[in-house]
């Protein structure tokens, strides 16, 4: 790489250092809040897909198929450029003019709803991995369908899917980078901005890369701890593709 002037110290200078910190913080904020939406919503949709009622299953399937067959970036644009136009006039105006942090919130909703479809798939495969006999046994002692889910299926299913859920959370973390296309100043966008201002491409991207890798490693280690504590003997982890 002849002719490249290395310039690591520049990353420690203002405002670049501040950019990295705020970018990293935004990435975390976006990911965690999106997960806070995705996890409960995805669980509901996942459970719907295992329901006895065909109508409920169809709703769940429609949700998942809709969100997984459109690229996330396209969804981002739809939420940011199209949805405000399609809302009733007053709401549209509020969203476009008065809503605080419009890019962040839009990215949050987009990422949250998309990730919910992934969580739904994991929850579904977790529940389906439980032998049918468990369901029958629970019903045979008189539990209602809701109780069957609450006391028998869900506790086991969630423990089984800890590993693939972890990887889905990391997916949310990585997908937060797409928010840069609508102007959210998360980590990757800040790295790019530094590159544009200082031409220290390698240093800027390397920093972002290291931070992503660190987070991935940290989350995986944490989740291994969670999995170990919550493991039930005799079950093997499963996951949806």
């Amino acid at each position, binding site marked *: *790489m*002849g002719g*490249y002037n290395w310039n690591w110290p520049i990353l420690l200078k203002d405002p670049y250092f501040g950019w990295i910190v705020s970018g990293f913080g935004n990435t975390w904020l976006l990911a965690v809040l999106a997960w806070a939406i995705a996890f409960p919503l995805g669980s509901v949709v996942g459970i719907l897909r295992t329901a006895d009622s065909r109508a409920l299953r169809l709703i769940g399937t429609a949700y998942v*198929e*809709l969100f*997984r*067959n*459109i*690229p*996330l*970036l*396209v*969804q981002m*644009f*739809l939420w940011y*450029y*199209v949805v405000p*136009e*399609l809302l009733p006039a007053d709401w549209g105006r509020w969203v476009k003019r008065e809503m605080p942090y419009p890019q962040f919130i839009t990215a949050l909703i987009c990422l949250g709803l998309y990730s919910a479809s992934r969580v739904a798939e994991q929850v579904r495969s977790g529940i389906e991995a439980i032998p049918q006999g468990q369901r029958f046994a629970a019903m045979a002692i008189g539990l209602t369908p809701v109780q069957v889910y609450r006391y028998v299926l869900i506790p086991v299913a969630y423990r089984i899917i800890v590993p693939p859920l972890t990887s889905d959370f*990391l997916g949310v973390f*990585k*997908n*937060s*980078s*797409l928010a*840069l*296309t609508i102007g959210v100043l998360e980590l*990757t966008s800040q*790295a*790019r901005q530094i*590159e544009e201002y200082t031409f220290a*491409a*390698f240093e800027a*991207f390397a920093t*972002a*890369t290291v931070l*992503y*890798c660190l987070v*991935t*490693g940290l989350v995986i280690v944490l989740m291994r701890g969670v999995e170990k504590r919550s493991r039930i003997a005799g079950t093997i982890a499963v996951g949806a*593709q």
Partner: protein
Amino acid sequence: MFSVFDVAVLQRALPFLWNGMRLTLQLTTMAVAGGLALGLVLAVMRLSSVRPLTWLVAAYVNFLRSMPLILVIFWFYTLVPKIIGRSVSGFDSVLIAFIMFEAAYYSEIIRAGISSLRRDQISAALALGLTRIQAMRYVVLPQAIRNMIPVLLTQSIVMFQDTSLVYVVGLRDFLTSADIVASRDNRPIEMYLTVALVFLIICFSASRLVNKLRRRYAL
């Protein structure tokens, strides 16, 4: 709501959009081919008994899977020209980025496909007097490939969607072309909804086909 949807805009933009789609398809097929080839090499290396090799591949795979694809695209887009020493077309840089990225995922799928075979299947083949290579060729690979193909296809459909990320470096794929028209003519609704619909139809049908394939040929 539909009074805002102007079909004429769409019609005018069709040739431009089609060019974008051609780039998307080109990028997808070349990245799938390259990613599969590299992924196969990586998987073989990982399954070998050479310790440094398995470690190297594991590090590569884990490294690439820790980063967002956008960042990988930025990396290769800015660094490939610097490494090669001359200017490279955006398409080529991005293609390399995709190949390197997807190979990590493909290699894991291939590796899982091969190691998912029960150990005693290999034992049974060896017990008959087949050499390791013969066992691989006649017993392990035929089964592994049949198991792998649906998953590889699914991953390729994901890649087809991922190509939309070339937007960040301005490459004129399907989405970016639509975006250009949307800004130029100020008609975001028609353009983005069309893109969404096209992807929805293509990907949904493709995944249905893969499911059918899986059910028919599953071992």
